């Protein structure tokens, strides 16, 4: 009798654990397809040898342009290079009609965050990889997932549901910024990074 109660209780605990750690993350995030595939490695690899800042540029006033516009792609891809499926999509759907590619941005911060790339990349000389990981050498795009409640890209929280990153670059939540700033003894105020 006593034993049965304990077993029941434990099975309740186990059921919760299973749901919480496996079913819940699956339900919390919605997978969204990128408009097309993109191979960073082809661009940055030995053959082309492009650096990050050749496409991800700064403007004159120091703001970061982020993902390049279609005009940048057109500079090289005005006609299809090679015969891959994504090359076809690029040229037919975007370059030719001169339409911007509606990329889903893994590292998109909310409107209330102010992140000056200039201060980090130019002044503090932080490498792109420190925050973005080896994205620049990837040959396929990772799966883009969006949190159904908060609307954030999964990469902001980090791929791991526990919030404990398995790679140093994983996760782009505020505590990540705070930690780095603390290490560098920056006099911090909320308004430094919030707008």
């Amino acid at each position: 009798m006593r034993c049965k109660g304990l077993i029941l209780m434990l099975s309740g605990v186990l059921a919760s654990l299973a749901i919480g750690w496996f079913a819940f993350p699956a339900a919390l995030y919605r997978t969204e397809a990128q408009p097309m595939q993109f191979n960073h490695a082809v661009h940055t690899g030995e053959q082309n040898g492009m650096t990050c800042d050749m496409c991800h540029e700064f403007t004159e006033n120091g703001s970061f342009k982020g993902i390049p516009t279609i005009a940048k792609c057109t500079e090289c891809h005005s006609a299809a290079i090679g015969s891959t499926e994504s090359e076809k999509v690029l040229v037919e759907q975007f370059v030719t009609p001169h339409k911007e590619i509606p990329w889903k941005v893994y590292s998109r911060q909310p409107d209330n965050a102010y992140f000056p790339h200039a201060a980090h990349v130019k002044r503090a000389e932080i490498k792109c990889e420190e925050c973005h990981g080896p994205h620049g050498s990837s040959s396929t795009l990772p799966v883009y997932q969006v949190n159904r409640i908060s609307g954030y890209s999964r990469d902001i929280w980090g791929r791991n549901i526990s919030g404990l990153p398995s790679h140093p670059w994983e996760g782009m939540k505020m505590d990540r910024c705070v930690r780095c700033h603390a290490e560098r003894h920056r006099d911090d105020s909320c308004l430094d990074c919030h707008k």
Partner: protein
Amino acid sequence: MNITRRELLTFAGGSILGALFTPIPWKLLDDSAIWTQNWSLIPRLPRGPETFTFTGCTLCPGGCAVKARRVNGHPVSLVGVAGHSLSNGILCPMGIAGHHLAYHPLRLRRPFAFTGKGADSPLVPSTLDEIASNLAPMLKDIRSSSSRGTIAVLDQRPGRVLSDLYRKFVSNFPGGIYAVAPGSEDPTLTTLRALCNTTEGTLGYDLENTRVILSFGAPLVDGWSTPGRTVQLLQNRNQNGLKLIQVEGVQSRTALQADTWLPIMPGTEAALALAIGGVIVRQNLFPAKIEKTSPDFRTYKTLVSKFEPEDVAAVCGIPSSVISETAHALASNPSVVMSGYDPAGGPLDNATETVIAGLNVLLGNIGRTGGISLHAPIPSPGATTSPAVGLAQVPDHSVRLLLIDGAESGHTYPLSLLKRKLTADGGTVVMLSPYLSSRSALADYLVPSPAAFESLEEISTPPGARRSSFALSLPLLKQPDTTVDPATLLAKLAGASGLPSVGAETVESCLRQRTHDIWLSKRGTLATPTGSSQTPVMAMASEEELWKGLSEGGWWVDNMQDKQVNPRLTLLGLMTPDRYDKASAPALDTTGTLKLIPFGWRNATMTASVAPVLSKLFQESHLRSLGGRVHINPSTLAANALSDGAYVKISTHSGNMTAQAVADPSVIPGVIHAIVGPSPNNTASKDRPEAEGILGLCAVRDDGSWRITEATIAKA
């Protein structure tokens, strides 16, 4: 297997315990909090490249230079252009939010027809072609005979190339009238032009060199002409030695900033002007030549002799010593006398305007440094075809078809002023307008015109400017497909009336023509947007260079020498001395009839004419009073057994309405200072025009003025 309730509870207890060790509660807590930070009720911010455009504000004839910050091509904020020599980097509250106006909730998004006239009739969607074909028989009829009334165009902002198009259009009809709206021109200068008996050239104030300004209620720091000009002159008074004497029955923002404020009983301005004239004449403070050059000097002298300062003091409430001091200040310095120009009260009556303008003649201010100059107008493609008349001068019941231009002049006027010009059957009114407003109530057809910053327009010489100037207002916003360019409407109407293609011209082609004329004239210089460099037109290689400079936000200022003024200046013009009696002492008992004086703030006289964000000034603070409120001196309120904030019924011969009274010690006793202005958020009725409000109570006199109306108040 039988599961008891207790077993089920044990299981549930276990799962609750287990859930605490999963991410579920904690992640949900976090995500729900994040959700509140970016839920769909907060708009997303635009992201995109930042650019800057120089343009000009067309909300009023002031024509201030604007630097627009744009994100993704959309204007995000507007600022003045610091180096701009005409507006000195200053924008008014309307201008600074001007880019929001195109999105006003009362924006007209398509042509409409009314089934009947008035505020109660509903809007019926229509099309431009439908309107043109409906009007075709009437247009053709008017073309053949004007016996049953003619066509008139009411231009709200004269002096544009579009104005020339209007004039050309009406000249095709017999008796066709090109009228200008009250307030679209400076009343003192208009009156002076009549006294000078000159048609050539444009009059302007040489405020930069004057030392004393006597202003009869002109809102010099609150939206007069190009605000940046007067505000800066007055702020630099300790350097330029300028003195401002403000004559006004309310302590307005200008009166507060004035060196001397003469709190006058409204309606006695003529007496004061004549008393000042009397002191000048009696003490021989005027230039000797005036006696010879002014044919009516003797008449004037006889007239002013009846206006002894002591007597006038009792009438207008200004001590005789102050009247005398004012006369001396005016006579011993370069000075300018100017009047009214209230955006809702309109000009003073003709007789008063004449003696105010006449003071300038008496002082010899015309054509002298620091006085009033006569300069060359912007080079124009030749003589215009229809003469311009003031709306008041249009014969009553003569207009069968009225076309109202949609430009903003920053002023307003009672609709009854328009109504009396229409034929007995009420006529037909076609109104161009970006918004639905109280004026729409008069229209039979509403044609949506471009809103501010949506179309290419020109910034021509601001009223009272020292020299002619010209710049382009370049569009910042994409014009909705449904809006109709005025030139297009003219072309349609011309087609409907069987005219040869008058309207083939577009505003842009007219502007190019005007640029061409300027280039041909070789006059003036073009300044770059920031004023950093100036190029004489003479030094320009091609017309295209001038156009390019203008298209980049540059502005052209004339450098022509001032014109010679016709020396035969009259002091009273067509006014006869019997028009002026000393005016009996105003009833200062404040329980009987009060004086209803409409007051408006330039550009803020109608709901739709201000951007919704102006609610900060009108609704979310007490900085500016909401439209429809009446400010009354506490003593007058008390005498009528009313209290601050009470709702009062105001009655005049034209009707009555209820308004909220505000006890305001800055208003002279015996006066109802009625705010004609916006209620920025009063957009509840999007499908019918709002009622006219206080202006509907005003009595319009024969000379077209409506500033003072007798009224009574009682508790509502």
